[in-house]
């Protein structure tokens, strides 16, 4: 098995761990963190392809990861602020209970 | 140093000040807030002095030119430049603006907003005087309305809302015509650069291009530009917004409106209308001469009828600015006028522009002081015997008044004299009629003086204080300049004389 495949496996498994976590837990914070993990898994992919890709000197993968990290940080900030707002509203942070806007 | 973008600095440093005031003004004490505004307002003067040090009056073309491509698709350039014509109002702005702020130092409510808006206004006015491309010239032109509107509306007198509204709508309407005119001009020529357009007009390429637009457009272009400028000056009978706007504005803003903003219109006439549309102007000149005369005579007589001192001074502004246009139209009305006569008329126009800025600003400052002392009253009959209780104030106000009245030895005379020399040489009858305006000016100003300063001490006047330090400092520079320029007009004339001589030599 080549290192690239190992990396990709790592990333896809991490993605699935994140996905399962996000799907299974009812705590909104953990759901958010699961989503974060999925993002990180994608980042691992970028780095892996940069490392073993045809043109590592261009550094596109690294740059993409940097931007993704920045966006993820923003996402985390807004998401957790939302969690706090939700908590203030319904006194818990169970995701399935936040359904006021359903159709 | 010469490589510095001095002109851009002149325009934008006040804006930086406005930004700082808007951001930090709330945190500052009243004193430092005022000092900040004043300092940034003074920057214009300081930078203008820098400019003056390397300004070459003998060079007729633009100096300190900044020319950068901006919107290439429209062929719009960021183009700034300065010649004798632009230098005068810039100097005037530099001198008057800080004094306006000084005169406004009584304002407590929202003082930092006031300062920020004022600096914004100052920068916009400077932009108008320095821009050489219609695109941003027009931006500055319209941008000056916004702060002026708020300054009048928020800090003005009881009728300020209506006056500000009227002022903005009227001027905006004029501006719309102006824009329309220039849009057509752009379609015809493909450029918006004043220098380029002037060159086209001088070589005679402009009029066939405009004529190629067909229909009523050749006339409409001229009329549009003319209307936009005429409202701003204002030329009789487009002046009805002026008395109320000037009267209701707070003192400092009145000073700025009359001292600087009214010059924007005259500047526009000299910079745009006259060089670009010489034939049309020539054709319309007899009629326009009549309008300018109307401003001179009826403005003065209308002032006689006013009982509100500020309105009175506002009408005197109409009267004085009409002299400038009178001379210009007189030059335009004659084919191949004598160069010397035309030169004196145009010199007079420029000088009058400068001098009126000083003396009208001083007069408004004086009326503002009266208003502040009496708690808002400014009727002609509300005072009496002020000279007894405030001799120094009376002296300063008297100097301003006599300067405005054209007393020799003070600055007002030289400009008016040159205008009369020019107008007499070109249209003697107009000069004779305009004399009526001179007489009426003397009459209403002396009535003002007699009712307010002379006679027994009026009710409520006895407790007036004489000038305080700030007021003294506001008026002192203006008064000193009145004396200095009255005796040595050469100081100013030298700056623009070569330019005027060149104009007069190349008249159509």
């Amino acid at each position, binding site marked *: 098995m080549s290192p690239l495949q190992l990396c990709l496996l790592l990333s896809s498994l991490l993605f699935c761990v994140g*996905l399962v976590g*996000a*799907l299974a837990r*009812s705590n909104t914070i953990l*759901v958010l963190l699961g989503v974060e993990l999925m993002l990180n898994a994608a980042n691992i992919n970028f780095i892996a392809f940069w490392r073993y890709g045809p043109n590592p000197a261009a550094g596109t993968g690294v740059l993409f990861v940097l931007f993704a990290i920045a966006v993820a940080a923003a996402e985390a900030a807004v998401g957790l602020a939302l969690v706090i707002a939700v908590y203030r509203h319904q006194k818990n942070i169970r*995701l*399935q209970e*936040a*359904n006021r*806007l*359903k*159709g | 140093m010469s490589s510095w973008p001095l002109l851009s600095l002149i325009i934008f440093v006040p804006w930086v000040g406005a930004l700082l005031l808007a951001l930090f003004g709330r945190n500052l004490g009243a004193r430092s807030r005022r000092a900040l505004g004043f300092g940034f307002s003074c920057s214009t003067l300081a930078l203008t002095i820098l400019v003056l040090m390397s300004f070459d009056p003998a060079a007729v073309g633009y100096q300190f030119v900044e020319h950068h491509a901006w919107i290439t698709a429209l062929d719009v350039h960021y183009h700034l430049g300065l010649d004798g014509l632009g230098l005068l109002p810039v100097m005037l702005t530099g001198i008057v603006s800080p004094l306006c702020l000084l005169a406004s130092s009584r304002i407590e409510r929202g003082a930092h907003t006031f300062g920020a808006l004022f600096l914004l206004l100052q920068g916009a006015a400077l932009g108008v005087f320095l821009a050489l491309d219609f695109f941003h010239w027009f931006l500055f032109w319209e941008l000056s309305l916004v702060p002026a509107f708020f300054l009048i509306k928020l800090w003005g007198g009881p009728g300020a809302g209506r006056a500000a509204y009227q002022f903005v*709508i*009227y001027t905006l309407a004029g501006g719309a015509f102006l824009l329309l005119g220039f849009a057509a001009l752009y379609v015809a020529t493909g450029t918006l650069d004043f220098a380029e357009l002037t060159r086209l007009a001088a070589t005679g390429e402009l009029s066939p291009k405009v004529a190629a637009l067909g229909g009523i457009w050749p006339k409409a272009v001229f009329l549009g530009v003319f209307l936009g400028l005429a409202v701003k000056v204002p030329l009789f*009978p487009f*002046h*009805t917004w002026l*008395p109320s706007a000037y009267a209701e504005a707070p003192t400092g803003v009145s000073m700025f409106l009359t001292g600087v903003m009214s010059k924007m219109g005259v500047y526009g006439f000299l910079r745009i209308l006259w060089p670009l549309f010489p034939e049309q102007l020539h054709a319309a000149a007899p009629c326009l001469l009549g309008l300018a005369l109307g401003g001179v*005579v009826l*403005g003065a*007589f*209308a002032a*006689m*009828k006013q009982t509100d001192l500020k309105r009175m001074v506002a009408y005197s502004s109409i009267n004085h600015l009409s002299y400038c246009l009178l001379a210009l139209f007189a030059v335009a009305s004659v084919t191949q006028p004598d160069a*010397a006569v*035309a*030169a*004196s008329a145009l010199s007079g126009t420029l000088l009058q522009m400068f001098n009126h800025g000083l003396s009208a600003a001083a007069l408004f400052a004086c009326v503002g002081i009266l208003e502040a002392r009496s708690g808002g009253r400014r009727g002609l009959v509300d005072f009496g*015997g002020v*000279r007894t209780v405030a*001799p120094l104030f009376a002296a300063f106000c008297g100097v301003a008044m*006599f300067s405005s009245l054209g*007393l*020799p*030895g003070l600055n007002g005379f030289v400009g008016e*004299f*040159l205008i*009369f*020399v020019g107008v*007499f*040489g070109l249209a003697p009858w107009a*000069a*004779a009629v305009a*004399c009526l305006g*001179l*007489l*009426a000016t*003397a*009459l209403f100003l*002396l009535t003002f003086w*007699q009712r307010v300063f*002379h*006679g*027994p001490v009026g009710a409520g006047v006895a407790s007036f204080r004489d000038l305080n330090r700030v007021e003294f400092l506001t008026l002192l520079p203006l008064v000193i300049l009145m004396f200095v320029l009255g005796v*040595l007009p*050469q100081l100013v004339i*030298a700056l623009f*004389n070569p330019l*005027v*001589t060149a104009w007069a030599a190349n008249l159509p």
Partner: protein
Amino acid sequence: MNLSVQHLWVIPALPLLAAVIGALTPRRGRTLAAGAAIAAMVGAFVVSCLALHTALVDPAAKLVHNFAWFDLGSGVLRLGWLLDPLTAFMCVMVTFVGSLIFIFSLGYMKADANFKQFFCFLSLFAAAMLGLLVANSLLLLFICWELVGLASYLLIGFWFHKPSAAAAAKKAFITTRIGDLGLLLGLLWLYNSTGSLLFFDGGAGVLETAALGSLAGQITVGGLAVSTAIGLLIFCGAIGKSGQFPLHVWLPDAMEGPTPVSALIHAATMVAAGVFLIARVYPLMSADQALTEVPLHALTVVAFIGAITALMGACIAVAQNDIKRVLAFSTVSQLGYMMLALGVGSWVAAIFHLLTHAFFKALLFLGAGSVIHAAHHEQDIRRLGGLRGPMRVTFATFAIGMMALSGVPFLFSGVWSKEGILHAAHGWNISHLPLIAALIAVVLTAFYMTRLVAETFFGKARSHEADHAHENSAVMTVPLVILAVCAIALGFLGTPAFPWLQARLLGETEVHGHSLLEGGGLMMLSIVLVAVGLGGGWAIYGRKPRVAENSRDPLVTAAPGLMAALSARLGFDELYAATFGRLGNGLAALAHFLDQWVWGGAVGMLARFGEFIGIVNREADENGLNGGFDIVSERIRGSGRVYSRAQTGDAHGYLRWVAMGFVIIMLVVVLGGAR
């Protein structure tokens, strides 16, 4: 020791410096301001004497020094100084009389709170007046002309808390400005025709042959020569400033100012500036004399205006009761004499009379001031009387002045100068009406002066103030004495037997005297006329002095209608108020109306129109166009309601659907790819 002409500016500069010092000293700096003013004036006098000395070396020479003021187009605008005997004599007179009046003011204004300001203004006036005299440019002259007007305005309104003084000051300024506008127009015309405003400029000046020839050669509106038109316009200025008919109305009112001001400005110097102006531009005024086909010569107008003014002023003076008003109308009348002399061609006679008149009229005004000061500001002659006893010096000097003015023969200066004018008028070949008017005025002058002296000094005191009057201090009497001496002595500079002054003014070095008996008939006539006037006055007022302040004037008893009209100054003020005043007000009202209703109304109409369009637009939008959109949007909302059921509010579910969808799509792709 000679004064170089380029240093001539020192003469006006000294009082100007004093004025600046006076302006900058604080209010309590009385000594400094007054000291500076007097020192400057005396200094200017000394320099003027030097200038006179220089000028008399070659009286015919016009010493000029021109300099650039500012660039104008490709050329420059130039101003300059001029030194000739006319300037020099005038300067000496102004500085000498001025110095004495300044000193007199020390006493007269002693108690005034604005003492310092007074000297400041006086110095300003002196500077402007001297500047006017030394100007070699009509423009510079005009500038100083306006500045003396300003000083006059300030000094008339010196007691500005009195509404009458404030009004008088304004009236003086506006009235003279009307004339000044004529002067300005004349100046503009002159400048446009010749391209210069310098009087003498090495052949290029406007008073030199080349310019005069071209000016006289052109004909303008009404067939007038251009020089005539310009001259008449310039004369307008002189009419205003010198209180000539019909713009004389301001001069009597100007007596609201302090008496030294009346003496200096409204008797001796400023009002004579008009005469000086005409004398200065005399070549221009007389340039049309040689023309025969023109309808009018400028000088003819001058002569008639002068004659009318002389007669009218003398008539009105008879009926005035205010000591200063009498003197003011006397001044109007005497200025008329001078104009008459100018008009009939003898400008030297005019200047000679100007100089003598300056001294004795200043003397009279200062005497009046002395009386007023002693009588605690009582000016009404009906309330004075009997001052001969307590005020001996004042009485003696006032009497000398009165006799000089009346033209009492031989000893007093007035007679010689007046004789010169009468002779000139006699020799005028166009009309004898001016001569007749002048002769009538001679009688009246002697009459009203006798009346004035009799009412003031004889009889017994008719009021408390007059009763308690006593002689003033030396600072006020010494100037009176000096002026009295001059009022006598000055006449001998220009007697017909030895017309030294006239010769120097005309630029001659030789003095050609002629016998007193030449033209003696006219002289005898005038002596008789003076005697009639004096005798009549004494008969009516002197023999039986007025007993009480409200006792009736004998002349009023005799001709009540005439005296009432004269007392009301022939109603000029009312006439002007009814005509020009109303016209101006009407114009103002018109302008205001136009502004308020016509232009403002037009703009308002436009605004209404815009509003109307807006209303129409809104109605159309709301009722016409919106209906269709409403239906469409209702449909869209309905379909939205259906789709919204897909939103379950279960976030996990959404995510699960995404994951499942991904799996399904991938399966399809992978299997499809395999197939």
